[in-house]
């Protein structure tokens, strides 16, 4: 399959959106683009599995390589493995759901959709690039759309949040940039991921560069204590913005931590794994406890994201094949779940004009569909079997447990404790919003979800269920690729 499709479709969509004349055109073009992209992503999955079942065991498939800056060894090198395929599908699902829930954006519709498409373009490019420069380019592309989406269409302290987000992410990028250049020089001028992964850089160099890359990508994926853009950014962003932020952008970081930092610098990963584990366990528990005290739905989800993303970092820190698979599953699962969560919060906010749990109550009565979805996502978040969150978290736990040392065990147990805290805050949120008596008389006239909202929710729910009920396919997709990464790591263990 020609991977250029993956960036071609959003590119064309973006241009078409720019050239379209009225709001209706914009919306339909964006939706068509997103749907086409979903189609491409699913096709990619099938072609990928077909190729694999035909016995192709190359680590990375569908590679293509074009020259750009030949003197600097910058090549447009693309390719996918199971991890990228999973991430691409996640992005496509979140993308179409984002396009759907933004259907009724009134202000500057064209610009809104343009930025949205640009943001997803960055993500697709990021997931398929095999050249550090190109990867970094696509990573950075998405910073400004995020800033503008929050700053223009956001709510609350939007300018502050947008600024903070952009600057913190830029800070992360700065570290990544240094790390990338470090790799470039240390390897004798190569930006190519595949080449770099086959080089055995001296351990000292790896230990020097690894923290730069890991912390850099860590900022994107809310590594404690660099997560503070998450609550503000997510809560100020418009619905689709939050969905993209949490569902896609944070995954860029996780993917980077794994694909760039861990894969290319296995010795570094081994050397720092303890620190990563400590930080992620702190993030998991601390995020969960902080969530317990939040009163704003978006803050609840944002802090819970910090906690949930901690699991994927924990999986990376644990450095076992199962843990890494679990970490990736958690990325996918959290992406879908949190996107849906934000979508539902957006739907509720659109109607009640408040996000304070204390001011709501009994929404189940007026909006059964929205409340039910809200409840299901909540259950997914607290790791109910049958939904994606459970599969991912359990895989992380089982994988973490494979490590022999007591420290790892204790870390796992501490992390597992969050499932109780999660239950507390999720049920609190659900209990206070969807259940209980109706507190505000004026809410009694509210209506349930519209077609676009329903479609968005159902699409994401289907994805969540597909992982939760039959996790085998995702496991089969991710595990061999995780194994390829682990092969590099195990040499240094």
């Amino acid at each position, binding site marked *: 399959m020609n991977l250029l499709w993956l960036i071609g479709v959003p590119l064309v969509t973006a241009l078409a959106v720019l050239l379209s004349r009225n709001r209706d055109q914009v919306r339909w073009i964006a939706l068509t683009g997103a749907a086409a992209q979903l189609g491409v992503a699913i096709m990619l999955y099938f072609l990928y599995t077909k190729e694999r079942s035909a016995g192709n065991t190359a680590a990375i498939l569908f590679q293509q390589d074009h*020259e*750009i*800056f*030949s*003197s*600097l060894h*910058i090549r447009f090198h693309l390719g996918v493995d199971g991890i990228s395929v999973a991430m691409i599908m996640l992005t496509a699902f979140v993308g179409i759901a984002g396009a759907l829930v933004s259907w009724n954006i009134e202000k500057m519709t064209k610009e809104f959709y343009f930025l949205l498409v640009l943001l997803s373009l960055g993500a697709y490019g990021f997931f398929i690039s095999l050249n550090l*420069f190109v990867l*970094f*380019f*696509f990573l*950075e*592309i998405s*910073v*400004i759309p995020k*800033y*503008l989406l929050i*700053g*223009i269409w956001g709510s609350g302290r*939007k*300018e502050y949040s*947008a*600024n903070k987000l*952009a*600057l913190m992410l*830029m*800070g992360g990028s*700065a*570290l990544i*940039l*240094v790390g990338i*250049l*470090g790799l*470039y*020089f*240390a390897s004798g001028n190569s930006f190519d991921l595949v080449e770099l992964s086959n080089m055995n850089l001296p351990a000292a160099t790896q230990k*020097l560069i690894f923290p*730069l890359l890991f912390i850099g990508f860590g900022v994107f994926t809310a590594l404690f204590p660099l997560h503070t853009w998450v609550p503000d950014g997510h809560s100020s962003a418009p619905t689709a913005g939050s969905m993209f932020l949490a569902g896609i952008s944070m995954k860029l970081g996780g993917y980077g931590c794994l694909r760039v930092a861990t894969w290319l610098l296995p010795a570094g990963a081994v050397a720092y794994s303890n620190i990563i584990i400590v930080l992620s366990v702190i993030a998991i528990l601390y995020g969960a406890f902080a969530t317990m005290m939040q009163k704003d739905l978006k803050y609840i989800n944002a802090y819970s994201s910090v906690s949930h993303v901690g699991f994927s970092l924990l999986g990376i820190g644990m450095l076992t094949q199962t843990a890494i698979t679990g970490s990736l599953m958690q990325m996918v699962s959290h992406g879908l779940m949190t996107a849906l969560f934000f979508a539902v919060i957006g739907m509720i906010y659109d109607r009640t004009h408040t996000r304070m749990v204390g001011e709501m109550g009994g929404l189940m009565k007026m909006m059964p569909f929205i409340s039910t979805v809200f409840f299901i996502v909540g259950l997914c978040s607290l790791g109910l079997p049958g939904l994606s969150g459970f599969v991912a978290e359990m895989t992380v736990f089982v994988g973490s447990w494979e490590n022999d040392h007591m420290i790892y065990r204790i870390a796992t147990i501490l992390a597992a404790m969050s499932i109780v805290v999660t239950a507390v805050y999720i049920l609190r949120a659900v209990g206070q919003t969807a259940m209980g008596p109706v507190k505000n008389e004026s809410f009694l006239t509210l209506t349930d979800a519209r077609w676009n909202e329903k479609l968005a929710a159902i699409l994401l729910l289907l994805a969540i269920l597909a992982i939760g009920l039959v996790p085998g396919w995702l496991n089969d997709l991710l595990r061999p690729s995780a194994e390829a990464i682990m092969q590099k790591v195990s040499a240094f263990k």
Partner: protein
Amino acid sequence: MNEFLTLMKSELLMTLLIFLLLFVKLGKGVKNETLLPLIQVLLLLNLIAGFFFNKTGNLFGDMYFTTPLMAFQKSLLNLAAYLISLLCSGWLKKTKHLPEFFMLMFSAMLGMFLLISSGNLLMFYLSLELATIPVAAMANFDLERKTSSEAAMKMILSSAFSSGILLFGISLLYGATGTIHFSQMAGLLDNSPLQILAFVFLFTAFAFKLSIVPFHLWTADVYEGSPIAATSFLSVISKGAIAFVFISTLYRVFGAMQDTWYIMLVILSIITMVIGNLFAIRQQNIKRFLAFSSIAQVGFILVGISEGGAAGLASVVYFVLIYIFSNLAAFGVASVISDHCGKENINDYKGLYKTNPFLSWMMALALFSLAGIPPTAGFFGKFFLLTAGGAKAEYWYITVAALNMIVSLYYYLRVVRAIFMDKNEQPIEKIGISPTVKMAFILCGTAIVCIGLFGKLYDYILSLI
């Protein structure tokens, strides 16, 4: 004779233009409305001509020499001049002495061309003065405005003082080596204290023109006070030309002192980035803001220069090319708005997007490019500068540079925020933009978006070296 014509083509064309304007001035007064398009066309032709018949060679016993790379650099300056003539046409049309303004500008450019090609300290000094003195006059072009004359005064005094120090350095250098020819001098340098003193004094002249901290203090005042066309000229053409000369002087002449100037560049580039950024944070006037931002940009250029080889040279030329488009687009927007209602304050830009989406996007694009954010070309420029500068694998150095990008993003976003997000009861009203200006903007915008994606350009520059 033939060789003289082709090798000195850029300078000769410039001279021709100056004389042409002189004749225009001598004759009956031509209206600005007719003269300006003419000049624009001439500049375009000049720009196109710059791409042909470029050879390597020297003249006047090594006092003048040129290479295709230098021709390319001159073409970049021509391009910038052309863009300025388009983007600032609002102000230019209103000015009383249009031919004089362009005469001064062309003289300064002639000085820069000679400066780029100079092979001799005398030639170097002469052309440096030629490149400086007219600019001071340009700064004074808003004759009735107090700040304009203040700016010009600061510029001429500072530059005179700076050239005094430069000359003292040159005299010491002459004393130490006995020659004023670059080609001979290169072999005679031995890092003796006298030479280092002389080199530092010589260096300050570049530092002054490039506004490297702490030799930058005149920059912001002059940028703010001057008419916007002069400011654009100063910040783009003047800076670009000096950067080219600086890099070739360092590499070709002072190659033997690389150990010294590497450390010097590292120290100064860090100070420059930091101070430039810190000052830019607080600025309210858009021109002053861009002045400090351009100081910070120079810090980045120094990072690239510090590499000391082909990669450094290529990355600097590439960056200047991108910088021309980005900075001119920003100044262009500022100029259009300033001409229309005299507003130059960032707070006045609040709510601009409501009324002027085109200008707003242009400004945003330019600022993102200056901040080095993809997909704009600035990203590529900065990345290559750092790639070059990091070649010595001084991680902390690139780290500091990269961290400075965060601070710079902070203040660029301030403007973006004012334009797109802040509410304003009375935003600047809708401004009609003439087709030529619009064309220039579109040219800049396209270049900003596409230069980076079109990778061959960098390789082309590298091939010229």
